[in-house]
C-alpha cells in the first residue's frame, strides 16, 4: 500500500504536466507567431497594429460589457432558482439539471434564429435591443453558471445556514446577501470566469444579431491578416484574465 502512494503521486504530476503542456503549448505557439510581424526578427509590431485599430478596443469593450451584463443577469436568475430548488423543491433538481444541458444540445445558431423569429416583429420587436443578446448569452452560459453554483451549494450546509439565519431574525435578502452569497464566493467567481471566457469570444449570436462584438471582429481580422489575429488572441486572453483578476481582487477586498 505504501509503495502505491508515491507512484500515484508521480502519475498525478505527470497528468498535471500533460494538462499544462496541452494548455500552454498552443498559447506559446500563438504568442511566438504573433511576434513575427517583422521579417527576420521578433517584434511587437502586430500588437502595435492591433492597438492602432480603434475597432479593437471598441469591440472588446462592448463584449466585456455584454459579459458583465450576462454575469449579472445569469446569476440573478440562477442563484435564487438553485437555492429555491435546494431548499424547497429538491425533487425538481433532476429537471433543472436536464434543462441546464439544453444549450449543449441546441446549437447557438438555432438559438439565434429563434430569437430573431420571436423578437423581430410586434408585439415583441426587441431584436435591436442589447438585452436580447444578453438573454442569448445567459442561455449559452446557463450550464456553466448552474454547475458552478450547484457545486458551491453542495459544498455548504445550505439548509443549516438558512435555518440558523432565520432563527436569528434574518429575512431572505439578509440571508442571501450576508450568508449565502459570501459563502458561494468561489463558485460565483468560477461562474464569472467561465461566462466571461464564453461571452468575450462568442461569434454566432453576435454575428446573426448584428452586434459589433469582439468575436466577429477577431473573425474578420483572421480573414484579412496573418499576425494580428494571433496578437489579438493573446491580447484578448490577457485582458480577459486581467479583468477577472481585477474582479477577484475587488471581491476579496469586500
Amino acid at each position, binding site marked *: 500500500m505504501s509503495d502505491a502512494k508515491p507512484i500515484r503521486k508521480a502519475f498525478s504530476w505527470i497528468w498535471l504536466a500533460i494538462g499544462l503542456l496541452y494548455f500552454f503549448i498552443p498559447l506559446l505557439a500563438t504568442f511566438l507567431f504573433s511576434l513575427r510581424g517583422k521579417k527576420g526578427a521578433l517584434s511587437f509590431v502586430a500588437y502595435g497594429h492591433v492597438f492602432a485599430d480603434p475597432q479593437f478596443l471598441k469591440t472588446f469593450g462592448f463584449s466585456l460589457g455584454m459579459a458583465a451584463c450576462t454575469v449579472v443577469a445569469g446569476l440573478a436568475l440562477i442563484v435564487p432558482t438553485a437555492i429555491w430548488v435546494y431548499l424547497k423543491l429538491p425533487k425538481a433538481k433532476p429537471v433543472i439539471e436536464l434543462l441546464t444541458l439544453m444549450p449543449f444540445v441546441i446549437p447557438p445558431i438555432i438559438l439565434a434564429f429563434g430569437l430573431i423569429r420571436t423578437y423581430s416583429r410586434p408585439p415583441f420587436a426587441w431584436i435591436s435591443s442589447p438585452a436580447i443578446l444578453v438573454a442569448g448569452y445567459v442561455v449559452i452560459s446557463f450550464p456553466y453558471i448552474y454547475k458552478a453554483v450547484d457545486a458551491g451549494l453542495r459544498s455548504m450546509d445550505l439548509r443549516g*445556514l438558512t435555518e440558523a*439565519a432565520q432563527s*436569528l431574525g434574518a429575512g431572505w435578502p439578509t440571508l442571501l446577501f450576508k450568508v449565502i452569497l459570501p459563502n458561494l464566493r468561489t463558485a460565483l467567481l468560477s461562474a464569472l470566469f467561465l461566462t466571461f471566457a464564453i461571452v468575450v469570444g462568442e461569434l454566432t449570436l453576435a454575428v446573426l444579431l448584428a452586434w459589433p462584438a469582439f468575436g466577429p471582429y477577431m473573425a474578420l481580422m483572421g480573414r484579412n491578416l496573418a499576425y494580428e489575429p494571433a496578437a489579438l488572441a493573446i491580447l484578448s486572453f490577457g485582458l480577459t484574465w486581467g479583468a477577472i483578476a481585477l474582479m477577484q481582487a475587488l471581491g476579496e477586498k469586500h
Partner: protein
Amino acid sequence: MAFLELRNVVKSFGRNEVVRGLSLSVEKGEFVSFLGGSGCGKTTTLRMIAGFEAPTEGSIFVEGAELSRVPPNRRRLGMVFQNYALFPNMTARRNIAFGLRVEGKKGPEVERRVDEMLELIGLGEFGERYPHQLSGGQQQRVALARALAPGPRALLLDEPLSALDAKIRVRLRDDIRAIQRELGITTIYVTHDQEEALSISDRVAVMRDGLIEQIGAPFEIYDRPATPYVAGFIGTLNLLQATALDPEEGSLLVEGQVVRVGRRLEARPGEARSLRLRPEALSLGGPGSNRLAAKLVNVKLHGAIVRLVARVGGQEVLVDCFNDRSLELPGIGADLSLTFAPESCAVERP
C-alpha cells in the same frame, strides 16, 4: 397560562404521520427535554416550534400568541443545531453579532453584548477566530452564544452535543444547564441520550411514535416509569418471567422462588407476569425482604459501577454495585443471594 403550549399538534409528510396529536405545556424558565429514539418525532416537534415545519393540524402558542403560521424569523426563538451551523464567512464575534445586527443594533451596543456573550461561554479570547479555527466544542459554544445574543424568548436545542466526543459532551451539557439557569430562559432540548436528558432537565418528555409516552421530572421518569416502553427505554431493566402465586398477598414465583411485591396483584393464581427490576435495586445480601438464589456468570467494570451478570434459574439478571473498597466479589460460578425490597419492583403483563 403556560409560556409555551402545543395543542394536538399533528405533522404528516405525505402519508407518514410523524407527530400524532401531541400536546404539551412548558412553564417560563423551564428546561424540558424531548427524549426518544430515531423517528419518534422529537426533532420534527422542535422544528415546528422553531417554525421550520408547519403543523398539519393543531396549534402552537408562545406567551399566549398563536405561532403556527408565523415565519421562523419573526418568532424570536433561538436555535442551536446539531452541526453548529455557524456562518463560515464570519468570525466568532460576527456570528454572535449577526442576530443583533439583523435587529438593527449597531456600534458599541453590539460590541458590548458580544463581549458579554463571549464571556458567558468562556471564549473571550477566541472572538476573532473563524469557525474552522475552532474545535467542535468551541463552535457549539459560539452557536449557543449566537442564539442567546438577541435575547430570544426561548431556546431550542436540537441534539447539540451529538457531534462531540464524550468528555466535551458532559462538560458542555453542564455549561448549557448553568447558562440556562443563570439566564432563566425557557429551553426545549432534543436528545436521544437518556443520561443527558435526565441530568440537565427539569422535565423529560419520553417520546414514541409521534406522541409523548410520559412526561415528568427525571426522578419520576426513572423511578416510576408509566409504561413498559419508558421503563425499558430509560436505564437498564431486568425483566424476569414470573407466575402469580397469591395475588391477594402480592406474591409471585420466579424460577420456583417466592417474591413478594407488597401489594395486591391483578392476576389469577398461575397467570404469567413479568417482574421489572432495576439492576441497582438488587444487592448482594443487602437489605430487602426478597431473596433470590443466583449464580455469578460474569463481572463487568463500568468505572464507578460494577455490573454483575447472574443467572436465576434459566434467566439472566444484571446487578449494579458501587465500585468501593468494601465490595468483595465472589468468583465466577459462585452462588449469590440477591436481595431487593418489595417496593423496588413492578409487575406487568408479559
